[in-house]
């Protein structure tokens, strides 16, 4: 059996990608008007220029880069992009309206990985939906971070086909959750039509 937490479609596979994290960018709390505000939870604080500049980009191999780091190094990365070595790392608050103006064809990325810091953060579902329907992303869409079995079915329905299950959680159990419901009511990304268009109902 593979020692991997990564699911692609219905199978557990080895991960050939390496995440490139921003250095120590996770300053957890900021003071505001005397109150502790957890900016990290809302994801509203963009990475600093310093963090972006100090991110070490490995010279070889398939790497997943934070959006900000990719944008900063876009020119230099073009040849590796053509080699299918560059994937995009999105946070759940990073909407793509502006990015899409710069990178008109997001299918240049073989993989987009959306990081969900807390599993309760349901923005990931809207993001998946937008990537698949609005921006027509056709390649692998991966969820990583606090990815748990009980959200997989919703992730699948929102357009994800790859899930890096949180360390310590049983990936085989998780696989089963992809089949939780056989005939969902509403149309979504995976099954587009609502059930009353798919089946004859009394």
């Amino acid at each position, binding site marked *: 059996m593979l020692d991997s937490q990564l699911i692609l479609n219905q199978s557990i596979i080895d991960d050939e990608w390496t995440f490139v994290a921003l250095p120590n960018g996770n300053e957890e709390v900021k003071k505001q008007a005397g109150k502790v*505000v957890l900016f990290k939870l809302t994801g509203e604080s963009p990475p600093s220029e310093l963090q972006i500049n100090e991110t070490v980009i490995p010279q070889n191999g398939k790497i997943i880069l934070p959006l900000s780091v990719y944008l900063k190094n876009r020119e230099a990365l073009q040849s590796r992009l053509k080699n299918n070595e560059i994937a995009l790392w999105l946070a759940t608050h990073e909407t793509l309206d502006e990015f899409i103006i710069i990178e008109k064809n997001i299918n240049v990325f073989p993989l987009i990985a959306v990081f969900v810091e807390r599993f309760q953060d349901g923005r990931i579902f809207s993001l998946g939906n937008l990537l698949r329907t609005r921006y027509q992303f056709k390649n692998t869409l991966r969820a990583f971070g606090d990815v748990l079995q009980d959200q997989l079915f919703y992730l699948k329905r929102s357009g994800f086909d790859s899930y890096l299950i949180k360390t310590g959680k049983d990936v085989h159990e998780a696989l089963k959750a992809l089949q939780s419901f056989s005939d969902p*009511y*509403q149309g979504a990304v995976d099954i587009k039509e609502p059930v*009353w268009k798919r089946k004859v109902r009394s």
Partner: protein
Amino acid sequence: MYQYDNIDQTIVNERVAQFRDQTLRYLSGKLTDDEFRPLRLQNGLYIQRHAPMLRVAIPYGLLSSKQLRKLADISDRFDRGYGHFSTRQNLQLNWPKLEETPDILEELSKVEMHAIQTSGNCIRNITTDQFAGVAPDEIIDPRAIAEILRQWSTFHPEFSLLPRKFKIAVSGSKQDRAIVQAHDIGLEFYYDKEKKMAIRVWVGGGLGRTPILGSIIREHLEWEHVLTYCEAIIRVYNLHGRRDNIYKARIKILVKALGIEEFKKQVEAEWSHLKNSPNTINENELKRVAKFFTSMPYEKLNDQDDAFDQAIQNNKAFASWVKRSVHPHKQKGYRAITLSLKPHGLAPGDATSAQMKIVADLADLYSFGELRVSHEQNLILADVKLKDIFNIWEKAKAHQLATPNIGLLTDIICCPGGDFCSLANAKSIPIATSIQEAFDDLDYLHDIGELELNISGCMNACGHHHIGHIGVLGVDKDGSEWYQVTIGGKQGNDASIGTVIGPSFAAEEMPGVVKKLIDVYIKHRNPEERFIDTVRRLGVNPFKEHVYA
């Protein structure tokens, strides 16, 4: 009413299996408390002060007698023989065991019921008018769309973990009885100039800590687009609603922060992509669902019945009950009847399993085997013949279901409060019962006339205190329980949020405070003027002065 086909039934069965597995994983330590919390909440399971609480969904408040009997059985087998009907038309069991909840859900599934999305940060039970389908002032029966919304919202993948809970109410009558303005989305149905069914869409209403009445986001929406338009609204909310502070996470806060114009702009931009997408409904689907909500097989009757009129003449107690509990009906010779779950001195909204069985029998005998739950926490037999009303009264009276107080001061809306709820600042049930006992004189009660008194045990406002003509809110002052009083709140088309009259009171002062408010009203009222109208005419000052004199 709606009946499951095998698609509905499979979904509910699969849910039971899923929740059984989740509960087992939790009990065996594979799921942490934090991981299990949203899972159990989305199945209506709270962890309360003494025990878990399970909230069972009653979609748009409609129940069959068979379902009510099952609820009675469940409360006998798994609980302490009673249940609490809530302001959101659901049923709450206060004493289930966590490890038995999968079995309870399995029992529910046998009668086409569930607890799906009765709590948690998702789209909750769709609510509507308890008189839907029978009210004379109804323009459009909203139940078919309510059922379509129920199916669409059940496990909607994109909206399964919203910033906060999301409540949708639908209404299709001239007089709004579904409080559409106090919901995250309120859908008001009407016929437009082309005689086509259309929807006025309200957004951003809600009570709770920050009470706000909704704003109209769209005056005219063609009904086919109801789901995709809701998707546009909820997507904007899902992406931009606050997630850092649960007290600021409801859609109302986002709508206020952006302003309704900007919010609308974003929603319309989103909708331009979603409009006509596959979830758009069509005539066939509406018809398919609507056929479950057609009129009952009524007999052709006169709108008058001698025996009924005579009973009113001869029996004062019956007459005063009829005055409060019998409501007009679109069909000649038929009436809707409210059975009061507010006997003086007991917890408002509670029903024992014995009472549930009696009501189920009454529904079978006299009302086509169906009944409704109102957000005022009473039970309704919606299709009763005039000639049967006296019989119903006698049976209901024998089981404490015929207190003649519907719409009156003692028909109190009340949350479980400090007796059950771990979020409470103060108890609410004892306040309700002490007020009921203070106003136990029925003649006086009827003389005071229509009055809505709502009590919540904390600012979460489960008892809708902001929109009570008199609202009572439990507050905590240095660890002891106090009560803040508002007046002038109202539900309906001309909804308003009440005004605080001043510093809060101790529990034992409360009946006296309400008496003083009533004294001012009685002194100043014009003939036929209701309490709320007197408050609106005079403002709060005369009331305040007398209470604090």
